[in-house]
Every structure is written in C-alpha cells, then in structure tokens.
C-alpha cells in the first residue's frame, strides 16, 4: 500500500545533485571518474516530468508483462500497480488521485463523487453524492447501491485479497461475511441512487483518502459472478475487457458509454490496450531498450531489472526514455523485539550499526534506482528529506556494532534467521554479509512474494528478522508509524506492518496524543519527532527507498510515474505520439 506525495522531493531529484554530497552514500566512495568528486543520479533526470509530450488519440498501447494481475476484481485489487491499472482504465472510484506527475499526483480529486465527501457527527459519518450521467459499458447508469454492493463484496471470504479499510472503519462490520447469503451492511446507507453515506466506528478525518481504493468502485449486483468476476470485471471506466486469457493476454477496447465530460482525470488516448503476459523480465527490458517495430509503442509492466541498468544508464538515447519515480516506501529490517536476542535494545542497535546500506543499495540496482534511508518515514513525510539522527555511516560501522554486542553480553555474536521475499534475495545477501562482519550470522529464508505476507504474518512461527517495507497510504505520518510500531495492532496470524512486534508504552501513548491533535502542522512535526525517538529504540533498521525505473518505447507519450501508485506509469494519461506506428 502506498500513495503519498512528496513536495520537495521532485525538486530535489530534478536538481543535478551529487548523491555523495546529499549525505547518502557515506564518505568513502572513491570517485573513479574524478571530475566532480561524485556523480549525479543519471536516472532521476526525468523525475516530475511528462515524457513524450501530449499523446495523439488512437492506436494500440502494448504493455509487456512477466506476470498476470493479482486481482482485477475491484473488491480484491490491493496491489499498487494493479490498482493503477484497474482504477485508471476499468472502473471509477468515489475519489481518485489527480493525473499529474510529481507531488501533484498525491492530491485527491472527486471521481464518481461530485466532491471529496461531507463529514458530519465529528467525521464519524461521511456522505458522498454521485455524478449524473456516469454509465457502465452496457449504458446502464452507475448507482450508489452498486458502490455499496462492492464494499459489501469485499467482506466475502470467497473474494479475499482486497484492502481492509472498509473492515477497519465501517461500524458494525465485525462478523459480516459479504452479500452472497443476502445479508447487507447497515452502516452503508443509500438514501437515493446518487447518495451514499458511510457510518464509521470512530472519527476518521482522512476517510476520503481511503475511498480511492478499488473497494469503493461500483459493481452491479446482476453482474456479480463471485470469484469469476476477477476474470471479467464490468467496466465503468474508459475501457472494457475485450478478452482476458489469464496469464497470457488481456485486451481492452474503448467503453463507448464512458463520458469524458464526467471524468476530469482519465484521458483515454489509445483506442486499445493489449497486455501481453508471461514474458521473461530481461527480455522485456531488451525489447524496450531496442524499441523496434511494434515495441516502440510498448511499455513495461514491471520495473526495470537491476541487471539491465548497465544497458540503460550509459546510453543517453535510452536514458531519455527512462522514468524512475520514487516508490516512497521504506525497506526495513524488522527484528522480533519480543524474543531473545532482539529483546535487548543493544543487540538491535548493533544491527543498526552493522548494516551496510550502501551494499544493499548496490544489490538493489545502485544509487540510481534507490535512495538510502536514515529514518523510518520516507522523505515525503519529512517535507522532502529524511533527517539523519543516528549519523551511522552508510557503509555501517562494524566496530561499534561489536562493541554494542559485547555490552549486551554477546561478544562472539549470535546466529539468527531472516525471512525475505524472493525478489529481495540480493538485498538480503548484502545484509547477511555486512552483519556477518560484526559476528551476526544470518540465515536467509526466501519466500515467494505471494506467500510472503502470510509467512511473516504468522508471528509464532516466523523468523526473528524480516526484510519488508511499508508505504504510507497518503501523505500523513498517521498512515505510517501507527501501522508499523503500534503494539496494539499486532495479530498472532495475519499480522502486518508491525513485524517488530514492538510494544512500547511511551510510543503508543504519544501516538494517541498526536492522533488527537487538531492542527495538522503540529501533528506533522510531532510524527517527525516521534520517528526519531522510535529509531533510537531500534525496533527496525531503515535501509532504503526504491525507485520504479521504467523504460518506455520511443512512441510513448504522456508518460510519468504516478507517485501515488508507487511510481508505476499513470495509465490515465499514457498514450502514443503517433498512433499509426502502433500495430493493432
């Protein structure tokens, strides 16, 4: 989950700033080019810009992918890129993100709704009015009842995987199992076809931010086919599914009943979108770098592989077509604070000192595609730049780590295990290597991404260390620190966020205090300060913030990384320079 903004970040990246000078890569990077003592980030040149100018209407935009979507059913779609694809092309939500590069992409604008919602009862009740004239692909109008129906669907055990905002905030939602057996949620009311009212279980001033989730997209009851709906979502957006051959190909064509006058976000330039799936990731990179023939009108679904960086970065021609927006999620090593040896703060601090962030960055594609992290919350929540309160060198300090271990009564170090998603294996090996220098022997358990959260969410059987990340859902500390460090959110199974199982009374008390603050500026400062306080207690080690590098075909226009979708291409505006060059 992440959607957020970063005001100053874009400016920071656009500036030709030497990374070494940004206090990121420690003091000992030998400059081997010797010209300016460091190197500017060659990947960040296009940050905040729209590549390729304004697209022409028409043509076929091809998306090359090494995988299938996890879920396109709006009740189940909770993967950053999939949400981008679903909500930008196939279905509309009450509220959505502005289609703009850089920080502006984090702003929310009305979509199905006429405004950003009206709170009442101290933000315990939220009312949205739907626009007139919004239609499905068969020409029937979108109703408030359909939005309510999809919210209800998201509770079905037959339809797992979706965001849990509705479950977390709607009143009387406990034990609700979806509409399949004819039961409905009383806390969502639809007084007429164009009005929907949500009754929450506690005041929630940021509720509109949650209604960008596909959970709040309409699904007409007559079209609902349970789990099969995933294979053929019914469109309320500018495109509809023409054919969907799972794991092979998805073809979208225009939904003629979509009315651009009701939609200020989606531009819908191409006539057709074709997603080709199951390709090899490195072959996708090669094809887009070469950008020959039909591949000129193609984009990659997944991020550029780190291995391909050597083919992209030295080549100015290719670099012009490179997007590398920050994902704004912090990768962390989280330690099980409830168990020995990590119940000792000195041991945890030893890990903070031992970890060589620079090595992990290299394993992650290098400083061009990553920024090192010195705080938990990503730079966007610090107004553009993370503070460095601990002043640990980016390459780590094994000596200091050993000292701390000796103090903790472990002069010979210890052995432990770390669970990582299989895609993070290289990063994990870099961590393993650097901790090994301080005498901490780490065994790596790699888990496939799909099973990763289930594995680390099982707090009893998981390893003492996990490598995972957290993304703020929108630019507020309230979507980061409480999720990651509030001990009251810890669950025995299906635990998420607080993988340190950090239960610190002072921290929790402070979080409640900040949540009650009415002045947003004061709250922001308080979150920032709390971040540093938690860092000193070392439940986790912040490692890095990744970017989402994408190489575009030469015929692609209107392209930028949407900051709210983890830097994925914004499908609301992407199109072709010259539609006649694309192949149907």
């Amino acid at each position: 989950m992440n959607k957020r903004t970063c005001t100053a970040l874009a400016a920071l990246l656009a500036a030709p700033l030497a990374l070494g000078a940004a206090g990121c890569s420690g003091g000992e990077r030998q400059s081997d080019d010797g010209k300016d003592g460091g190197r500017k980030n060659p990947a960040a040149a296009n940050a905040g810009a729209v590549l390729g100018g304004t697209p022409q209407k028409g043509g076929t935009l091809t998306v090359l992918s090494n995988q299938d979507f996890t879920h396109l059913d709006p009740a189940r779609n909770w993967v950053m890129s999939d949400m981008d694809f679903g909500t930008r092309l196939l279905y509309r939500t009450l509220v959505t993100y502005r289609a703009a590069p850089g920080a502006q992409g984090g702003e929310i604008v009305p979509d199905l709704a006429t405004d950003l919602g009206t709170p009442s009862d101290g933000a315990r009740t939220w009312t949205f009015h739907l626009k007139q004239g919004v239609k499905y692909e068969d020409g029937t109008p979108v109703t408030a009842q359909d939005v309510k129906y999809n919210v209800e669907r998201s509770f079905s055990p037959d339809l797992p995987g979706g965001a849990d905002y509705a479950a977390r905030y709607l009143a009387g939602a406990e034990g609700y199992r979806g509409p399949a057996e004819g039961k409905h949620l009383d806390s969502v009311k639809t007084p007429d076809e164009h009005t929907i009212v949500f009754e929450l279980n506690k005041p929630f001033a940021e509720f509109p931010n949650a209604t960008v989730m596909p959970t709040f997209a309409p699904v007409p009851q007559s079209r609902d086919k349970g789990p099969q709906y995933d294979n053929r979502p019914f469109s309320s957006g500018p495109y509809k599914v023409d054919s969907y051959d799972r794991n092979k190909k998805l073809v979208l064509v225009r939904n003629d009943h979509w009315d651009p006058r009701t939609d200020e976000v989606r531009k819908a330039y191409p006539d057709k979108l074709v997603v080709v799936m199951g390709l090899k990731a490195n072959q996708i990179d090669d094809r887009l770098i070469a950008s020959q023939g039909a591949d000129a009108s193609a984009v990659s679904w997944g991020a550029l592989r780190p291995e391909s960086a050597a083919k992209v970065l030295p080549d100015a021609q290719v670099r012009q077509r490179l997007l590398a927006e920050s994902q704004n999620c912090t990768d962390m090593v989280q330690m099980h604070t409830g168990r020995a040896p990590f119940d000792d703060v000195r041991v945890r601090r030893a890990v903070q000192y031992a970890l060589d962030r620079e090595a992990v960055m290299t394993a992650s594609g290098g400083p061009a595609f990553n920024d090192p992290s010195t705080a938990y919350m990503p730079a966007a929540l610090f107004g553009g730049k993370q503070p460095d309160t601990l002043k640990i060198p980016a390459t780590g300090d094994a000596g200091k780590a050993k000292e701390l271990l000796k103090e903790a009564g472990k002069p010979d170090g210890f052995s432990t295990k770390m669970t990582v998603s299989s895609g993070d294996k290289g990063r994990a090996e870099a961590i393993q290597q650097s901790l090994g220098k301080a005498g901490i022997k780490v065994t790596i358990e790699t888990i496939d991404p799909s099973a990763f959260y289930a594995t680390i969410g099982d707090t009893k059987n998981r390893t003492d260390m996990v490598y995972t990340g957290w993304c703020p859902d929108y630019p507020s500390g309230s979507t980061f620190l409480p999720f990651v460090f509030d001990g009251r959110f810890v669950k025995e199974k299906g635990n998420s966020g607080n993988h340190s199982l950090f239960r610190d009374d002072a921290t929790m008390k402070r979080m409640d205090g900040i949540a009650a603050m009415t002045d947003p500026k004061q709250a922001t400062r308080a979150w920032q300060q709390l971040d540093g306080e938690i860092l000193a207690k070392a439940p986790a080690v912040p490692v890095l913030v990744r970017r989402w590098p994408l190489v575009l075909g030469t015929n692609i226009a209107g392209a930028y990384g949407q900051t709210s979708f983890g830097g994925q291409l914004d499908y609301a505006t992407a199109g072709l320079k010259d539609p006649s060059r694309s192949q149907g």
Partner: protein
Amino acid sequence: MTTTAPSPSALPTGNGPWRLARRELRRRPSVTVSLAVVALFLLMAAGAPLLSALAGWSPEEFDKNAVDPYLGGRPIGPLGGVSADHWLGVEPVTGRDLFARVVHGAQVSLLIALTATAIVVVTGTAAGIAAGYFGGRTDAVLSRLMDLTMSFPSLIFMIAMMSVAKDVNRVLLMTAVIGLFGWPGVARVVRGQALSLKHREYVDAARVGGSGPWRILTRDILPGVSGPVIAYTTLIVPGMIATEAALSYLGVGVRPPTPSWGQMIAESVAFYDTDPMYFVVPSTCLFLTVLAFTLLGDALRDVLDPRSSRT
C-alpha cells in the same frame, strides 16, 4: 568419491579381469582426459577452502570496489573484472570473487550429485539383488514399486517437494529427493544380472555347500553384478549433476549465499549479455564435468558391461 575410478587395488576379487579392463581403458585417450577432468574438479571441490584462501577471497565476501554501483553493479575492468586480485573476475552487483564461488560451487554440486548417486546405487543394488535372487513375492512387490516410482513425474515432483519444504537442511533434502527417484534404474539392471547369475554353477555350488543367502549374495552375486553397476553408476552421475543444477536453476536448490553451479548459472543468466564471463564460467564447469563423466561412463560400459560392449 568411490564411484569414479575402478582402481583395481580397491576391488577385492579376481585381479585378472580387472587388470584386463584397466589395460583396455588405458588405451583410450578419452578416458585419460576425462579422468583428468574429473580428478581436477574433485580436487577442486575437496580443496575448495584451501584454494579460495590461496586466491585471497572467501566465496561470500563482497568486494564493493570491484563493481560500479551506478551501472547496476557491473564489474569494473575487462572480462567481468578479471584481475590479479580476482582470477576469474567477480560477480556483478556483489563483487564476490568468481573463482572462490565456482570452486565452492563445485563442492556443493558434486557433493549432492555424488551422494545422491551413492544412495541410488546402494538402494538400487540392494533392491535389484533382492528382487532377482529371491524372486516370487519379493520380486513382485519390488517390481511394482519400481514401476510406480518410474511413473512419477520426477522432476516436477522434486521441484514441488523442494519448494514446500522449509526448515530443513537443503543440501540433505536435495540429496534425498534426487536419490529417491533414481534407484529403479539401477535396480532393473541389477535384477536382470542377478536373475542370470542365480543359477550359475558356482552359485549352486555355494548353496549346496551350505552357504546362507547373505553369504551367497555378498560373496557370489554382488561381485558378479559389480561391473555393470560401476558402468551404470558413472553414467548416472552426469544426470545427477544436471538435476541438481536444474533444481538450483529453478530457485528451489541450496540457500543463498551458498553457491552451487546451477544457482550461479541461474543468477548469471540475467547478465549473459552485459557480463558474459559471469555466465560462461559456471556453465563451462558444469559442461566439462558432465561431459567428462559421460565419456568415462561410456568407456567403462564398453569395457565392464559385457552385454552392451558386444560390438
């Protein structure tokens, strides 16, 4: 490592035919060369810690100065970073020494392959002799079991088992899993041999002479089947090495950062064009070892297995 060379002094019986075999093998240049290659890799595997110490790098040690972080960690210098410091260059991204990794990879790959082979040969021989010599119900049950095992889609099943098993010793598990599906092949060969030996005069003589079945099996039948078994063994070693590599290639093999050839190749595939050296080094090792074992097995079969060396 008992499976490689049928060194005559190590074998207990009948020096005559073995000496003959040895002379026959010496005449073939392919045998000499492949023996040398096999010996080289075995030595490399056995002396891995020593060799990598000599080169100055442990297989898991990063060398940040050897790679360029801005180019996705591409090795600095020609041929994937070959230098006096790194004899075969370095791994991209991490800068780990390729020589040290390939040498340690040999250890893991060969250890798994040879142990699995040993399991297969011991189980297969035991089952084959039992089925062939005792016949009747024992034969029926064992033969059914062989048929069943051979009907298993072994690679698919191996991948599946490796991928679901979590908290276990990967090397051990991999050895066991690979060994599990190989034995019926050996068992069939041995069963056939045992069937034909069972009624030879010298076996009958031993039986009449009051030898127990155990004694007959170990003293009379086993030596009789050893020739074909040795040849067959050498021929399945390459298959075992390739299987280990395939499993590691698919990411269900040994855990990082432990190197094995298959795993190294899997990781280097992504760099095959940007850093060909990284891809070529482990691939060549795998190729040479498999090739050498195959050639050796061919020769041994010709010489030791009278049935197929009829030509």
